[in-house]
């Protein structure tokens, strides 16, 4: 984008397209093999490797994770999972900005996601823990005492229907006829 010669050349354009396409495919399924990514995009396996490595090293791709239905996971593992969304209100002063508060909160391993949002509150926090009591202890003992935080509202997740683009439902059978014109 910033590099004009890059944007001007056809090759630069092709790179941009390849990056966008591979990013899209990785978001869809990060477990696609390099070979399959190559087959789907018409790129060489080497090119795929290079573009993905570049996306990773430049920090565009921050990591890869599975989308898990924890309710189902509970029945096949011992894992207990409680998920909560927490609204945070803060006051800023000359020395402390949003960044500083975020920096402090993000370091807690209990915090799965942290976003600055517009509207009635400032930060939207996602917390994951083994039990409701551990979530509330975390909020009351670790989050609420942060001096800039003026209010917290905790919402426990009761059920999840869709996450990261995936519907959590019984996989629908294909009810199409098996052979049609």
């Amino acid at each position, binding site marked *: 984008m910033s590099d004009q010669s890059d944007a001007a050349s056809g090759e630069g354009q092709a790179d941009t397209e390849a990056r966008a396409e591979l990013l899209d495919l990785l978001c869809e399924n990060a477990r696609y093999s390099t070979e399959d990514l190559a087959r789907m995009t018409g790129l060489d396996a080497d090119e795929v490797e290079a573009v993905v490595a570049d996306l990773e090293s430049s920090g565009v791709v921050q990591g890869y994770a599975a989308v898990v239905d924890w309710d189902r996971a509970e029945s096949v593992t011992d894992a207990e999972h409680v998920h909560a969304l927490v609204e945070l209100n803060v006051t800023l002063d000359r020395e402390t900005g949003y960044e500083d508060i975020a920096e402090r909160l993000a370091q807690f391993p209990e915090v799965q996601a942290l976003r600055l949002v517009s509207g009635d509150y400032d930060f939207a926090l996602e917390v994951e823990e083994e039990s409701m009591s551990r979530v509330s202890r975390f909020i009351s003992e670790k989050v609420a005492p942060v001096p800039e935080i003026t209010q917290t509202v905790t919402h426990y997740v009761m059920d999840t229907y869709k996450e990261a683009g995936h519907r959590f439902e019984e996989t629908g059978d294909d009810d199409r006829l098996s052979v*049609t*014109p």
Partner: protein
Amino acid sequence: MSLDGESDREAGDGEEAEESTLTPSQRVQNTPPSGIRRFFELTEEMDDVISLGVGEPDFTAPWNAREAAIASLERGQTSYTANRGMRDLRERIAADAERWDLSYDPDEEVIVTAGASEAIDAAFRALVDPGNVVAVAEPCYVSYEPGVRFAGGETLPVPTRAEDEFELTPAVLQEAGAERADYLIYCYPNNPTGATMSVEELAPVAEFCKEHDVGVLSDEIYADLTYEGEHASIAALPEMRERTVVFNGFSKAYAMTGLRLGYALGPAGAIEAMNRVHQYTMLSAPTTAQYAAVEALDSCADEVAEMRRQYDRRRQFVLSRFDEMGVECFEATGAFYVFPEVPDPWEDAGTFAEALLEAESVAMVPGGAFGAGGNGHLRASYATGLDDLKEAMRRLERFVDEHRD
């Protein structure tokens, strides 16, 4: 389902099937069941088949369109519409066709039908007289030939060739004797080959039709599923509008097959004639589906683009896999089909397809089911999720390797 032989009833459930005294017409008796049907029955008998034989999208219609259909039912909009379809819908269809440089008057030159199927049938019945000859570019969708026959016309097969990438050319038209045809029907992007034709490739076909006064019935139901370049319609070429009827619909691009909604665009006289048939046989296309279609045209372009993107990835995936296993397959650029050659040492597509189904539970349709031009090929549909496609290709590769000498 049928009057004898193919009864839906399980055999041996007590009663003897009654002998029917109703004799099928000569017309029907002369029309064999579709070659696809036999293969469908074979496939249905087996468990865990991965079918690459499906001719409809694996996606569900966009939610916005479904929601509009539901909302219309909630409002109680359950009556007939105008014969030619709701004006709101015809206007949008006409506006949408501008993408392909087609310009039609929503009042006189657009008709909404129960699927493109009904539009095609109405065109045959409205335009074809007994003794008229309709040239059919093959391999093609299975309904054209019986449709012409039901209308009392005669068909003239025009086999396209693998070496022409299954495109229509003046040469193949000439070779088939199509200059004596009254009409030519074809479909690009093509079912079953996945072939497409550009403006440059359509131009000589248009010249041929003008020179020999052949009317054109252009089935463009897969127009939105074009992966290289832009879809082109022959009706946009000079002096072709007045001699062409274009068919399209919502089944493929919008994944709305079960809603049964299609349309035809053409000169006022032809559409009026089709409407004459349509008003007596169908009255109006399904109302609920028309509401869905209005919404589809208003707000579902992104979903269509996303489905196209998914199909395109699968297309490239499948073509790469055929290439890797050494199975010849021309580079299909449209619809959701590829059309590989039968791998060595097989000669016959039907034998191969049955052996593959038997051994590996993968279904592909023998190309001959789509007309003579399809012999020696198989239709593989990639309207199937990538995981299944990967597995199907793995099984196919194993099967092909085992039998290679």
